[in-house]
């Protein structure tokens, strides 16, 4: 067993985990943060996407021990002071989700994507979210949500 500390959503969190504990399971089972969803568990669906030092990564393809001491942002850490983040508000406004299973992954991916590319074209949005699967929406409203999030972010730079 390994004692590790992860800075999760700005808060140092300690856990005692076996080496084979996936970051996704560490967040959900050891730290009780069940907002990060686990779909396929082999890197295809993108539901488990979290931010590692600000960069989106698959938490199901990362061992918790490997990222000991690093900063993790999960969907629980996107809102500030009880107010949804611009990306979250855009998804709500544009109906960018239905069942919500894939949503945490889309929100984390989109948050990082718009930080790097604040005014993306349609094609860039498709490329940016291509690693996340949604079985409900048909993606149309997700693409709209990403564009709307870009507008909201431009209106209120944090």
């Amino acid at each position, binding site marked *: 067993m390994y004692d590790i500390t992860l800075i999760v959503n700005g808060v140092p969190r300690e856990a005692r985990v076996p*080496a084979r504990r*996936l970051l996704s399971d560490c967040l959900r089972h050891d730290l009780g943060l069940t907002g990060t969803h686990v779909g396929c568990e*082999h890197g295809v669906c993108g539901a488990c996407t979290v931010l590692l030092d600000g960069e989106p990564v698959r938490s199901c*393809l990362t*061992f918790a021990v490997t990222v000991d001491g690093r900063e993790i942002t999960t969907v629980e850490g996107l809102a500030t002071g009880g107010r949804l983040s611009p990306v979250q508000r855009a998804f709500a406004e544009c109906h960018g989700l239905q069942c919500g299973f894939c949503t945490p992954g889309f929100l984390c991916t989109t948050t990082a994507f718009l930080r790097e590319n604040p005014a993306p074209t349609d094609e860039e949005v498709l490329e940016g979210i291509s*690693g996340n699967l949604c079985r409900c929406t048909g993606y149309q409203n997700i693409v709209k949500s990403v564009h709307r999030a870009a507008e909201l972010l431009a209106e209120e730079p944090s």
Partner: protein
Amino acid sequence: MKPPPFDYHAPTSVREAVEVLAEVGAHGKVLAGGQSLIPLLNMRIAAPAHLVDINRVAGLGEIRTDATGVRVGALVRHAAVERSAAASLAQPLLRQALKLVAHPVIRNRGTIVGSLVHADPAAELPAVLALLGGSVRLASTTGEREVAAADFFTGPMESATRPGELAVSAFFPAWDGGTKFLEVARRHGDYAMAGVAAAVRLDEDLRVTAAKVACVSVGPAPVVVDVTAACGGRPVASVEWGSVVAAVQDRIEPEADIHATADYRRHLTGVLVERAIKAAADV
């Protein structure tokens, strides 16, 4: 599913890493980005007794670029090379290929050297290394050796890396000419049904003086074919593509699977050879 249990090692230097690898021998597996290895563990296709996590090893994160090419350390992520203007200038084929590797989020963790050692015949980077005649540097307790791409890819998911060895870097030589990587996949980011990397050189009158291709997903390892002779020293506009395509199709050994028949892969490779060489010449 969850990965099977393993003994975990987290060395902090190359020396420490190769000592552990020497000790565990064939029971050890190196973990870098984990974007190919961890799915194999999760699906219980692989179950190494020892995992040597090199993410804390110092000195493996460098991209070194000069006029001769690009040397990439074992911890350099796909995304880092994709973003590097210097690397792209020295060897544009790297960025062209990286755009086709899985999805951006996977490229944030996956490593270039890891892709090479994984040696998936459907992967882009082994084809790039093979086409350019690059090499991989392997370290062990007894020293280092540099293995040429032609000797490195020995079969499907098999490289010349021996038990106890750590791939510490790879070198992608520059190419004095044009390049292009094209592929066809069922969905963007999926494994290619067929893919072709091309490198072309023209003289002042735009005649082809050198042309070679590397094909993915149509053999146990990347298939490199020099098609300079088949191009007949003509300008690209008047090359007889039938003989160029035939020269490549003679050398590939496509197999059927759920995604495509062998004939379809052969057809796609032919189409992509012509397109990639034309695009590589159009600079």
